[in-house]
């Protein structure tokens, strides 16, 4: 049961989240935080809103596992992921990944690791609405390459290596 992962429709206050992450831990020397936001343009058209769907039960569990993996690889003291779902407007905040560590190198790396992992393995799907209509965003093969950089072979956007039986 976690204060590490929050999936919810409401916006978050990054400053408050970071303060909570650091609170009471005198060993923290660095906090690295990433915020993802809704773009306001897509394919030449202006984005009016975005719908974020997710797989309840799997979403939380998968991100918890990613945080466990981050603790295994990096020397970090605390981590928090907040990801919004539901209907968001252009320029709104979508996701926060914050990592606390004794030193900045590990904090930066763990934060980037979690973002690369989340972008390719966490069950969210974005649907953008523009004046031309609504369309599901395509996953990027480039993100798979980012995950491979960490030595993780799981694929997302690419076709599987071997055909199924």
């Amino acid at each position: 049961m976690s204060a590490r992962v929050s999936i919810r429709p409401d916006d978050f206050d990054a400053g408050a989240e970071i303060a909570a992450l650091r609170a009471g831990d005198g060993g923290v020397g660095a906090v690295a935080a990433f915020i993802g936001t809704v773009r306001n343009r897509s394919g030449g058209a202006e984005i009016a809103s975005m719908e974020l769907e997710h797989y309840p039960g799997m979403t939380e569990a998968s991100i918890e596992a990613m945080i466990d993996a981050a603790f295994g690889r990096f020397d970090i003291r605390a981590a928090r992921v907040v990801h919004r779902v539901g209907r968001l407007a252009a320029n709104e905040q979508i996701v926060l990944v914050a990592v606390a560590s004794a030193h900045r190198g590990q904090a930066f790396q763990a934060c980037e690791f979690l973002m690369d992992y989340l972008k390719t393995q966490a069950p969210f799907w974005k649907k953008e609405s523009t004046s031309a209509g609504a369309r599901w965003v395509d996953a990027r093969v480039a993100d798979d390459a980012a995950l491979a950089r960490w030595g993780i072979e799981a694929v997302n956007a690419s076709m599987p290596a071997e055909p199924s039986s």
Partner: protein
Amino acid sequence: MKVDVRYFASVREALGAAETVDLGATADVGALRDMLTARGGRYAETLGRHRVLRSARNRVLCAESVALAEGDEVGFFPPVTGG
């Protein structure tokens, strides 16, 4: 063997959110996908091998070679686009 199947995103829009499927004998996720595709129509368009899809067994991402058990929950969905 009965499993619960859940669909998400564009797959859900085409096929609905969930259904229970009777698979007969032992099978893996890939065999389930093939069985659903064999229904033709929207199922073939949405789940056919020409489409890149990801799958989860009991809410953990899995390869299609993973074996299924009675009462499992299987998810089929497009590549994820969170973050």
